[in-house]
């Protein structure tokens, strides 16, 4: 399985990670090594084998719809990069 320079750049955008041309080339080499390692899976016949999504076959628990958390706006916003009037400040998204 080979991966191209353009694919790396596309994946990086999907992952929201800025990547320079040089970084893309360096990453290409290392990712190809890892993808080759992963290719070993192809040799295994997995017809009719069910996927194991979790280590324990338990079902999702449900809980009563009751309030368990108290309002901690000030405390939680104390660690934010930018806050104004109790709101998180982000770049403008709507014109």
């Amino acid at each position: 399985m080979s991966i191209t320079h353009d694919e790396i750049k596309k994946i990086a955008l999907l992952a929201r990670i800025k990547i320079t041309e040089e970084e893309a080339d360096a990453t290409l080499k290392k990712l190809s090594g890892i993808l080759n390692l992963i290719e070993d899976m192809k040799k295994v016949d997995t017809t009719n084998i069910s996927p194991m999504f979790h280590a324990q076959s338990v079902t999702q628990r449900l809980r009563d719809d009751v309030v368990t958390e108290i309002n901690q706006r000030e405390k939680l916003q104390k660690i934010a990069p930018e806050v104004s009037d109790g709101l998180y400040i982000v770049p403008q998204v709507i014109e």
Partner: protein
Amino acid sequence: MEDWSIKELSSLLREKKTSSVEITTDYLQHIKKKNPEINAFITVDENRSLAQAKLADQLIQKGEGDVLTGVPIAQKDIFCAEDWLTTCGSKMLYNFVAPYDATVVKKFNEVGAVNLGKTNMDEFAMGSSNETSYFGGVKNPWDLTRVPGGSSGGSAAAIAARMCPGATATDTGGSIRQPASLCGLTGLKPTYGLVSRYGMIAFASSLDQAGPMAKSSEDCAMMMNVMAGFDPKDSTSIDHKKEDYIKNIDQPIEGLKIGLPKEYFAEGLDSNVAKVIESAIDQYKKLGAIIVDVSLPNTNLSIPVYYVLAPAEASSNLSRYDGMRYGHRTSQYDDLIDMYCKTRQEGFGEEVKRRILIGTYVLSAGYYDAYYLKAQQIRHLISEDFKKAFQSCDVIMGPTAPSTAFKANEKTDDPVTMYLQDIYTIATNLAGLPGMSIPAGFVNKLPVGIQIIGNYFDEARMLNVAHQFQKVTDWHKAIPEGALS
């Protein structure tokens, strides 16, 4: 510095032969002396630790408190601890002061244990050498030119250099057991779901599990009595009945069936490490254990499967780091997307970015069946291997890691050779089984660990099996040169 065990400290405190303030002060002083060289701690906060110690002493004076009241325990920096800097080894969280306690931290606080500080780790627990930490690599106290293993390398080095008697750790593919092996310690990765993941910064949620690291099995058992337990705040926590991990630790193990998987002794295992493991098995025979040959035929597939599943889950989990509500935010940006992309470019290190990209790739349109689904199917086969093996044995044993501690920078250029460090540990995470590493000997003055893999929820038996070995051997008592001075 005295070489105290958790058990000894607990007795000394309860007999009022010392105080928590006294012990905590001793450890803090030792950290001050040793940490500049070892770099095992990211954060130490003397005032906070001593305040907890004072409270513990008051409890003990009143005749209240628990077994671990007043005992200092270090916390891996992956656990959120309220008002403590919690970085997960990443620039992304270099300024993140946790607003709440992880359940594991809360449980130690509730029994009155003292938080001695936050230990260094590979960034977001991705690594087997502790070299990916934004806060610098950690040195192995047995040989300062070598790595302590990872990702819980800070916890391991801190205990090995006697900067704390025990520490919390986490294990996604071997991150408790491999550093325990490389630093001559005892470490337990419990059954998936036994210890709460709430407040433990997520890497690969279906594999992550917290556990104790200490010098002996007894000490790990004492920590397990605090750590284990159902938590409604963790959606995959299992409602397993509360056990006392100390109660049966002294039972004889005569007749115990130990399975040796031939795949764990095949090509890739250092021959000197193999000799140490074989002599440890001989010791078990002397204790009355019966050796059974078993096979785990899909062992080699565990690495490719892991490097699909773990990055896939990581790429999803780490998407929360966007520079909006906490953590690093880039200073210059054009618009929202540019802010995300630059924040994540600057905030994540190379290995973390690599794994996010791999995960994004295997989950991207058109590749899901070939990678993610295929890996989950093979995961099933790997889990079936263990099921079959446990039909003929009680525990499985083998090496924890293929070699002793390697030199710093030796494997950083080629991620694949680094990944092979976890060849014997990854499969248990995939199956959700408990695994343990205990000191079994030395090769060229470097510690070697033997791995004990148990069946689901068989931690009490594993700790018993480990303790019986430690009663007749001294490997776990060995101290790195100069660690106490």
